């Protein structure tokens, strides 16, 4: 392996990986339209774009997962035809997948050598495999326990295994697909350092993201995609976050401090949002409800709940949310946030503790009872808990109260009422759908989410529980949903926001509760706490800021 790297240094190609005029159709959709990118040795190329902009299609073409309809792929100065990822791997292109391609119960060493095992008489030469993995880990500073089962490792370590897997196959190009999506800010910084270290050894990196901050921090070259086309090629020195955001979305957006203030007030407005004047320190519009003496709406005391494997995931958690405030739960995914939300909403059995909502005991309540008390729930998993994909938009718009008047009478549904309600939701919440009879599955992610928000908001609610309310949707829809959540807060609804995106928590919350290993380890003021402080708390450092 050392020898091959020496060779890399001597015969360094001019272009490590490039696509020239890549065009790719899926049915009538043009995913990539004449896209050209070029990666040179020792550089980090950031591919920036919204969901559906064609980033993934492009790297799938470069990695041999898709065949382009037109255009050429170049690897190491040589034009190539890739018929499968195997061809790309053999030419030194490695992929760090967004969803790790690791076999959870197998050890780190076995995962790394899988498919290219050192062998002795058909058996795996474990000693040799282990030695080679340790060598690699040492050389690139990617430390990980070689004998641990992958499923027992934290996400950051799993990602290092994924990178090692590519390096074990002599990768000179690493394609990292949204590598920071699941990491804490500290893990993200560490990853960016690791990637930087790799480029020092001549490796080139294609880094796919929609996070502007990371692009500005790590990239050497930036390519912005929108609707399958390259709309900008630049470098961090020549651009700014605001300019990149505008390129990505195709219109001006207010991105100051990653906070969208509700500039537009029009209901259902899809008009361009004006750039807010440079606001030096955007603050939430209302002051903290704790000062205001508002009544407590959600009161959680000593709540415990187990995860699917029977391990305690929520551990004697205590938290209160008052009317008219947004409490954001920040935390790395997998620290019990999902179980917390499920325990409150009745989707999961709480093993101990109490939940009261609007002074009514809701411990052990079933989901419908929770709904009837006056709780709106934007669930984390749209497809699983939010909508029934094969049902129409109309049916989905009353999923939380189809059984009540005016939508049902005498055990029969009243289609006319349901349809007119659905048309209201569609108009008010800007759900783009041909008609209310279309199946929910036919909507885009952002429109599905707007439909859910519209459904949950169109009834009187005292408490809103929003779990990952903007995951995987485009900036326009994010903006819209954020504005609606703020409006609800201003009308006096208590909001519990759970999000893996620290930017989102910071942008929306009046108070930030940091969750770590099933507990709220600190509650901080988003106006004064820094990302770094919160990041440390998310990573389990109980010291530092707190209240």
């Amino acid at each position, binding site marked *: 392996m050392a020898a091959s790297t020496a060779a890399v240094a001597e015969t360094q190609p001019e272009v490590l990986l490039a696509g020239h005029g890549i065009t790719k159709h899926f049915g009538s959709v043009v995913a990539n339209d004449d896209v050209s990118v070029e990666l040179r040795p020792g550089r980090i190329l950031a591919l920036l774009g919204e969901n559906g902009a064609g980033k993934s299609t492009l790297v799938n073409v470069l990695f041999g997962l898709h065949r382009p309809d037109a255009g050429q792929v170049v690897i190491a100065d040589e034009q190539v035809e890739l018929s499968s*990822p*195997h061809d790309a791997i053999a030419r030194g292109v490695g992929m760090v997948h967004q969803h790790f*391609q690791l*076999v959870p119960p*197998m050890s780190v060493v076995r995962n790394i050598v*899988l498919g290219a095992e050192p062998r002795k008489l*058909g*058996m*795996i030469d474990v000693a040799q495999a282990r030695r080679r993995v340790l060598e690699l880990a040492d050389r690139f500073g990617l430390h990980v326990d070689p004998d641990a089962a992958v499923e027992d490792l934290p996400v950051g370590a799993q990602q290092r295994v994924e990178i090692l*897997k590519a390096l074990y196959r002599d990768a000179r190009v690493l394609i990292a697909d949204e590598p920071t999506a699941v990491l804490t800010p500290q893990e993200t910084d560490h990853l960016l350092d690791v990637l930087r270290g790799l480029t020092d050894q001549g490796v080139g990196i294609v880094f796919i993201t929609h996070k502007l901050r990371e692009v500005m921090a790590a990239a050497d070259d930036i390519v912005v995609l929108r609707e399958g086309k390259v709309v900008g090629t630049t470098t961090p020195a020549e651009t700014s976050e605001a300019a990149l955001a505008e390129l990505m979305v195709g219109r001006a957006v207010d991105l100051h401090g990653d906070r969208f203030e509700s500039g537009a007030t029009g209901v259902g407005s899809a008009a361009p949002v004006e750039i807010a004047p440079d606001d030096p320190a955007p603050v939430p519009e209302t002051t903290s409800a704790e000062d205001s003496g508002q009544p407590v709406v959600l009161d959680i005391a000593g709540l415990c709940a187990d995860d699917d494997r029977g391990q305690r995931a929520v551990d004697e958690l205590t938290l209160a949310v008052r009317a008219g405030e947004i409490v954001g739960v920040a935390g790395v995914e997998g620290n019990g946030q999902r179980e917390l939300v499920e325990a409150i909403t009745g989707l999961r059995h709480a093993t101990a503790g109490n939940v009261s909502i609007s002074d009514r005991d809701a411990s052990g309540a079933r989901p419908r009872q929770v709904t009837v008390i006056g709780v709106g729930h934007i669930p984390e998993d749209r497809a699983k808990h939010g909508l029934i994909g094969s049902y129409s938009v109309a049916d989905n718009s009353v999923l939380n109260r189809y059984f009540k008047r005016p939508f049902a009478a005498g055990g029969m549904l009243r289609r006319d009422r349901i349809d007119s309600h659905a048309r209201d939701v569609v108009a008010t919440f800007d759900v783009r759908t041909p008609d209310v009879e279309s199946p929910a599955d036919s909507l885009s992610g952002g429109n599905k989410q707007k439909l859910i928000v519209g459904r949950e908001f169109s009834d009187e609610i005292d408490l809103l529980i929003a779990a990952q309310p903007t995951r995987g949707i485009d900036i326009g829809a994010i903006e819209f949903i954020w504005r609606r959540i703020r409006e609800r807060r201003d009308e006096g609804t208590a909001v519990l926001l759970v999000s893996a995106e620290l930017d989102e928590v910071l942008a929306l919350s009046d108070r930030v509760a940091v969750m770590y290993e099933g507990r709220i380890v600190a509650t901080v003021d988003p106006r004064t706490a820094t990302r770094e402080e919160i990041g440390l708390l998310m990573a389990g450092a109980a010291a530092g800021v707190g209240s």
Partner: protein
Amino acid sequence: MTVTHDGGTHDAGAGSAASAASGNAGVRGWSPQRMWSVAGAVVLVACVWGFYAWDGAQTTAVLGGTVRAATLLVLGAMCGMIGERSGIVNIGIEGQFLMSAFTAFTVASMSGSLFLGVVAGVSTGLAMGWMLAAMSVGLRTDQIIAGTVLNIAALGLTSFFYDRGRSLGQPKYQSIELGPLADLPVVGTALFNRPPLTYLALVLVVVLHVLLLRSVWGMRTTAIGEHPGAAATVGIDVIRLRYWNVTLAGGLAGLGGAYLALESVGTFTRAMSGGRGFLALAVMIFGRRTPLGAYAAALFFGFTTALQGQFQLNDTFDIPAQFVGMLPFVVTIIVVAAAGLFGRMRDPAALGQPYEVR
């Protein structure tokens, strides 16, 4: 020997199965489970020894019957576990047994060669394995339905072509004594004075155990059953490997069918597999999808069958035959339920999910 005594030995049998299964997990610490397993094994050995001292002939007969019943079960269980470790559920083992038993018997009867019969049985198993693979891997049919198709087809075909007048025309496979080993007390006759296919099955258990846990093939098989997408990204041809595995595993069930017709019984009768293809799946799960674990589990289930047979033969106890005949099945229900309560084992993550190449 009383019925209450039997209760004790059953538990011990369960313990030893778990012990064999956890044996490959590592030897560093002694988990409580491991302690119980070893304790169970010790109690089991003590019981067997005690009974042997009390009544050598009957104990030997029961142990022999245990090994005889276990051989068929472990062959089926190994067929099932290769499939499941690759992500394919095989509930067609019953059909594979039956069809192979039929062809093995018919070919042996017509050719006059037991060996040709075994070849025919194994080939039939391979062919049925390939059919299962073609349906569940190739055509991505629901795997339960694919297995059911095999079972129904086997039952229908073998019943239709069943020839009541046909006999094997020669003795079935006879025991071969392995020199002085066969003279060992207690286990001598049970393990070392057996017909050839039993020995073959024992060798296969050990070989397959090593291959599944240590070989490149075994690791790749685990990978395609746990996370076929990950296996594909490192260049493993998931479809191809699943095809091979399910097909070759069918050969093991085919051997089981040949064993049933040519060594265990010596003839073919309608539906002679009698649900043991399904019992093999219980054995597989109870043995934690490892061959040695499955063999331990098979011995335990085999023991209940042998005990039942022995009860019906002698008239020490006045229990109606119908109740005695229930024994293996009642014990199966109890043990599988109990095993479910204690350490449940996780299925391969991609089990039952067809894999589609993007």
